[in-house]
C-alpha cells in the first residue's frame, strides 16, 4: 500500500466542480430533483421498449378501441376490470391508452426542453456577452432590443406565430439522415418560436455578469499582459460564468416544458406529436367523463418541471454557497 501511495501524484486540491458536487450531494431536495430528471430521461429514451402500446401513428396504438375499451377508468380503480394492470391511467374516448401516450410524450418533452434551452442560451450568451463586454452604444442598442422582447406579451405572440407557421407545414415528420430519427416538424417550429421569444431575460442576466466580471482585477491584469478581447471573453469570463449558465439552463428547461404544454393545451401545438399538453387538449372537452386523461398527463408535467426546478435550485445552492448561510 505504501508503495502504491508513493506512485500516485500529489493530491491536487479539489476542483470547483468536485466541491460543488460534494455540496450538491448533501442537498436532499436537489438530489431528489436529479433522480426525477434522470427518470424522465430514462423514460424518454427507453420508453418505447416498455410502453404497453406503440406510439400514435401506428394503428396498434388504437388497440383498446378495437377491444371495445373506450373511456375505461384506470384499471386499479375500476372494480369491473379484472386485469388490474391493463390500463394504469385509463383509456381515452378515441381508444388509446393514456399510460402509453404519457410514456411516448416524454421524448417530445425532453426534445422541447433541451432544444429550446440550447437555442435560447446560445442566443442569450452571444447577445449578453457582446452587450456586456463592449458596452456603450452596442450595449444600449442590444438592451433596447431585449426590452422590446421583455415588454411584449410573449405568450400571445408565440400563439400567433405558431399558428401562422404551423399552417405552412408540409411533411409531418422530418427524418434525420444518419441516425434515422423522426422529428415532428410542427413541434420543431414551436420550439424555434419559443426559443426566439425567450432569450431576453437570460441575456440580461448574462450581460449583468459580464459587466461585473469585466471590471474585476484579473481581467485588468490579463489586459495588461496584452490578451485579446476574444481570449478574455472565452478563456476568462465565460468559464467564470459557467456555473450560473448551468443553473439558468436547468430553470429554462423547466420553463420551456411548461410553455410548450400551454401552447399545446390551447390547441396550437403539433397534432402529429402527442406531447403531454396535446393529450390534455385532446381530452379537454370530455373532461367530465374521462378525468383520468386530464389528471395523469398533468402530473407528468408537474413532476418533470418540479424535478428540473429542484435540480436548478440545488445546483444554484451548490455553486453559490453564499446564499446557503
Amino acid at each position, binding site marked *: 500500500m505504501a508503495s502504491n501511495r508513493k506512485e500516485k501524484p500529489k493530491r491536487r486540491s479539489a476542483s470547483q466542480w468536485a466541491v460543488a458536487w460534494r455540496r450538491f450531494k448533501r442537498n436532499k431536495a436537489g438530489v431528489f430533483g436529479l433522480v426525477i430528471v434522470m427518470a424522465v430521461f430514462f423514460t424518454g429514451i427507453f420508453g418505447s421498449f416498455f410502453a404497453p402500446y406503440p406510439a400514435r401513428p401506428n394503428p396498434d396504438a388504437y388497440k383498446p378501441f378495437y377491444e371495445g375499451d373506450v373511456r375505461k377508468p384506470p384499471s386499479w380503480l375500476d372494480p369491473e376490470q379484472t386485469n388490474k394492470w391493463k390500463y394504469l391511467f385509463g383509456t381515452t374516448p378515441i381508444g388509446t391508452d393514456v399510460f402509453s401516450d404519457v410514456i411516448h410524450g416524454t421524448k417530445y418533452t425532453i426534445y422541447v426542453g433541451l432544444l429550446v434551452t440550447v437555442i435560447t442560451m446560445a442566443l442569450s450568451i452571444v447577445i449578453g456577452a457582446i452587450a456586456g463586454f463592449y458596452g456603450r452604444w452596442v450595449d444600449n442598442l442590444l438592451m433596447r432590443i431585449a426590452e*422590446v422582447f421583455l*415588454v*411584449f406579451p410573449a405568450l*400571445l*405572440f408565440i400563439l400567433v406565430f405558431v399558428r401562422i407557421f404551423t399552417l405552412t407545414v408540409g411533411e409531418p415528420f422530418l427524418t434525420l439522415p444518419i441516425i434515422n430519427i423522426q422529428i415532428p416538424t410542427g413541434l420543431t417550429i414551436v420550439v424555434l418560436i419559443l426559443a426566439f421569444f425567450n432569450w431576453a431575460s437570460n441575456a440580461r442576466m448574462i450581460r449583468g455578469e459580464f459587466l461585473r466580471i469585466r471590471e474585476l482585477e484579473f481581467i485588468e491584469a490579463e489586459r495588461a499582459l496584452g490578451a485579446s478581447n476574444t481570449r478574455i471573453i472565452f478563456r476568462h469570463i465565460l468559464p467564470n460564468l459557467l456555473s450560473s449558465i448551468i443553473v439558468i439552463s436547468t430553470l429554462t428547461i423547466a420553463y420551456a416544458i*411548461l410553455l410548450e404544454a*400551454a401552447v399545446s393545451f390551447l390547441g396550437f401545438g403539433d397534432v402529429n406529436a402527442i406531447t403531454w399538453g396535446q393529450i*390534455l387538449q385532446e381530452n379537454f372537452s370530455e*373532461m367530465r367523463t374521462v378525468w383520468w386523461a386530464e389528471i395523469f398527463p398533468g402530473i407528468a408535467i*408537474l413532476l418533470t418541471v418540479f424535478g428540473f426546478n429542484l435540480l436548478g435550485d440545488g445546483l444554484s445552492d451548490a455553486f453559490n454557497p453564499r446564499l446557503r448561510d
Partner: protein
Amino acid sequence: MNFGRFITRRLSLLLGSAMFRYIVRRLLYMIPVFLGISIISFFVMYAAGDPLNIIRLGRPTVTQETIDSLRRYYGLDKPIPLQYLNWLTNVLQFNFGKSLYGGRPVNFLIGSWAWETIKLQLISILLAFAISIPIGINSAKKQYSKQDMIITSISLFGVSMPTFWLGLILIIIFSFWLGWLPSAGSRGAPYLWWGNPILDQIAHLIMPVTVLVYVMLAQNIRLIRANMLEILRSDYILAARASGLSERKVIYKYALRNAIGPVITYLGISLGMMIAGAPMTEYVFNWPGLGRRYVDAAMRLDFPLVMGITMIITVMTLIANLIIDICYVYIDPRIRLR
C-alpha cells in the same frame, strides 16, 4: 403680479428638477421600444402571406379585377414601409380597424371584453400581494423551520405547475364531483348560483381567482424570501439590531424596504399585463375576457384584433414600467437620478 412670478418659479423648479428630467428621459426611452413592438406586430401579418388570398379561398368566382380593386381600396398596393406608417398613424389615434370576423371595430370589441378580465385580474393580484408579503417575510425569518420548509415546497410546486392544469383539477373536483361551484363562465347561466346575483358572481370567481392567486403567490413568496434572506444577513441589519431596535422594527422598517424592490417590479408587470389576462386560466374556465378572446383571434388569424390587443397591452406594460421606475426612486434613494 407676485402670484404669477410664484407660479413661473415653481414651474421652472419642477421642469428643472431631476425627477422631471428622469421621467422625460424614461418616456423618450419608451419610444424605440414602442416602435419595435409595433414593427414586430405589423410584420406578423406579413408573415402569414397576402391577406387578400384569404378572400380567394373557396371562392373560385372572385376575379383578379376584384382583388386588384380591393388591394387599391385597402392601400395594399403601396410599398410596405408606407403601409406601416399608415397603420401606425391609425394606431396612434386608437383606430385599430375592424375584426375580420363579424366586422365590428376592434376598439369596441376590446372595450366590451376588457371589464371581465380586469375584474378577475385585479382581485387576484391584490389578494396575491396582500397574502404573499407577510408569508414570505415569515418564511425568511424562520429559515429551515418546519413552517418555512412547507411554504417553500408549496410555492415550488406552484411554480412548477401548469396553471391550466390546476384549473382542470379544481373543475373536476369542485364542479363535477362535488357540484359546489360553476365550472365555466362569469355569470349565472343557466341559473343563478346560490340564488343571488352577487353570490353568483362570487361563485364564478372563486376557482379562477384561486388558480391565479396560487400561481402569483408561489412566484412572489419565492422572490420575497430569497431577497429577505440576503438582506437579513447584511451588515446594516446587524447594526440595526445592535442598536437595540425591536425585531419588528428591524424587519418591517429596514429589511422590508430593501427587499420590496423586485416585488414592486413584479406587481407592476402584473398590473401592466393585466389586460392580457391569463389566457390559460380564462380558456380553462371559459371566462369571457380578453385573454380567451385573444386565443380565439390567434386561432382564426384575426389580425386586426390580435394587433389591437397586442398594442394596448404593450402600452399598458410600458406605462407600468415607467411607474415602477418612479416608485423605485422613492423607495430606494440610492438610485441616483442621473
